[in-house]
């Protein structure tokens, strides 16, 4: 069964990534499903330790050594990339079709190479183009992300944090991938720089038609780019839907409480906090993983909650059955 439609870019089904540690198995990504159409952006929102960065790694198959299980289906342009072997994946998928801007990417630039070389390199490696052509492409990407062209010959230390973040973005874009996974792209940046980077992302989406998976804990900033929102809690996606619907009426109790915890500049709402802590990913409770903190807990919540469809939204909660 191939569930992809014509406009569908990505279809993720039951993605699992578990790690082996001294304390037991960490179920970082535990059965994640979502879809993404071309030229759309989905925001994966979650708090620290919910497995969202592991999800980014699982998507790009950038795995550490202590993986216990890694399974599921990831259809990109209708083909399941999980069936590819490492060499095919590296050649045809990573960077060529899907690239990553890792967390704190701006601090991960090589300090002894000019940024132009670093941006051009993925094009040479993954697309096999000549050096001149790769530099031409890098120059083009610098324009898209708003970095002056003469910065190509500068070293990372000569650039501000915002500029380095743009360079990291150019590096992800240089191969013209259909999809970019952004892991907390603005979390270490200043307010005005953050706004600038979000503007750049919006512009890229309009100009190049790129799709984005934006992984963040910053709800307010995420709304700058989101077409769809997926809420992640304890290794699972508990709610996914259109951004418009989500921001006006979150369905899952966790989403509702998370939204209520956001301090707002333009309204006088009194923000609330969620008592308790998320469960340890090593020792997950039976049934609904949010039940212990949920004000609407029922007896049923001891059993695995079903994924309920509400129009084109999905929520994993007994309340909506």
């Amino acid at each position, binding site marked *: 069964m191939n569930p992809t439609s014509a406009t569908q870019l990505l279809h993720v089904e039951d993605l699992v990534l578990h790690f082996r540690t001294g304390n037991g198995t960490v179920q970082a990504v535990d059965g994640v499903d979502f879809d993404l159409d071309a030229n759309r952006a989905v925001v994966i929102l979650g708090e620290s330790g919910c497995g969202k960065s592991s999800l980014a790694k699982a998507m790009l198959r950038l795995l550490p050594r202590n993986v216990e299980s890694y399974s599921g289906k990831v259809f990109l342009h209708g083909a399941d990339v999980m069936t590819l072997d490492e060499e095919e994946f590296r050649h045809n998928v990573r960077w060529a079709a899907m690239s990553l801007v890792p967390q704190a990417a701006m601090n991960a630039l090589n300090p002894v190479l000019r940024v132009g070389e670093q941006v051009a390199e993925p094009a040479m490696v993954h697309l096999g183009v000549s050096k001149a052509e790769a530099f031409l492409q890098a120059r083009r990407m610098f324009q898209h992300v708003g970095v002056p062209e003469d910065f190509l010959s500068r070293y990372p230390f000569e650039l501000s944090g915002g500029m380095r973040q743009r360079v990291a973005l150019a590096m992800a874009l240089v191969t013209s991938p259909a999809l970019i996974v952004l892991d907390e792209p603005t979390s270490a940046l200043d307010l005005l720089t953050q706004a600038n980077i*979000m*503007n750049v992302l919006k512009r890229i989406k309009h100009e190049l038609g790129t799709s984005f998976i934006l992984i963040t804990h910053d709800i307010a900033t995420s709304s700058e780019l989101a077409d769809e929102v997926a809420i992640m809690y304890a290794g699972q996606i508990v709610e996914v839907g259109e951004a418009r619907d989500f*921001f006006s009426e979150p369905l899952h109790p966790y989403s509702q409480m998370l939204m209520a915890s956001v301090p707002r*500049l333009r309204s006088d709402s009194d923000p609330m*906090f969620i008592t308790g802590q998320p469960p340890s990913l090593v020792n997950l409770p039976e049934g609904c993983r949010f039940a212990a903190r949920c004000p609407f807990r029922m007896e049923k919540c001891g059993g695995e909650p079903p994924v309920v469809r509400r129009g084109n939204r999905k929520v994993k909660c007994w309340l909506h059955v």
Partner: protein
Amino acid sequence: MIAEINQTRIKEMKIELAPLLSIRDLHVWYELRRFGFGHAGYVKAVDGVSFDLAPGETVAVVGESGCGKSSLMKTILGLNTPTSGEVIFDGRNLSELRGNDLRAYRFEVGYVQQDPYGALPPFMDIQKILEEPLIISGIKDKAARLERIRKVMSEVKLHPAEDFLPKFPHMLSGGQQQRVVIARAMLRSPKLIVADEPVSMLDASVRVEILKLMHALQAEHNLSVIYITHDLSTVKYFSARIFVMYAGNLVEKAETRRLLENPLHPYTLALLAATSDPDARNAESFKEVPPGEPPSLVNPPRGCRFHPRCARAIEGLCNQQEPPDFEAEPRHFVACWLYRPGEQGQ
């Protein structure tokens, strides 16, 4: 609103009380040296800052990284020596304090760090961490120390204390670590708390919890709090006044509500415009961001430091003369030539 209650209380107190902390034309410059010797200029991190803080008053210093807010904070904590200007705390001039007097001053000022994990020594358990300041301050009786620790831990809602005392920082969640940091700051019953981005490292759902806790402690002990942050959306829940800092200067000072309802300085306007509330409509438009980046503090621009980025800069004025503080409306000060007397400000 919480902040409003604060404001009325402060208005009442202002009449009867002298300021707890008074900062007069403070300059904190760091000398730059070429290859370890030879003068190469100064980093003018704080350049002419003045304000008063009443007992029990909460004020937020808002600014981006590199604007000098940390230097200001460290000077208030007595960790930096001012290049010029005065820091007067409770009638004492900070730069004249030495030895035991300086130590006594530090007991009166609590410091809540930004990164709780980095602020707690990883090799000490919570009991050791909390006992140390009490030992230094000369409480020799262990039972008395523990009693004080228990009391403060219950105030920051780390209970039962017995569960936490033998734990090491890495065993606690981010929120719990920050509570330990707050407890440590509260141990010596300070009059002033300096909180440096106390919630920026925490998750959204915990952030509000910590802010509310700090607010409750502030109200109960009538603490003065300097809350340093870059996040304007949290300010109104915590602070009665806001100071906006840019490139070493306070560019706008006003009561929180007044500033949020009627922001005046172009930089404040830019900060407010860049702050998003969660709303799906945000994705439909671009944000307006002033061009460029904050200036180098070694060689700040002549005149107003914001003028190279300012769309409303007045040629021949903003790029020539540094703007003084104008009182644009009662108790709303703005260092911007647009608001000079006789101008409409538009």
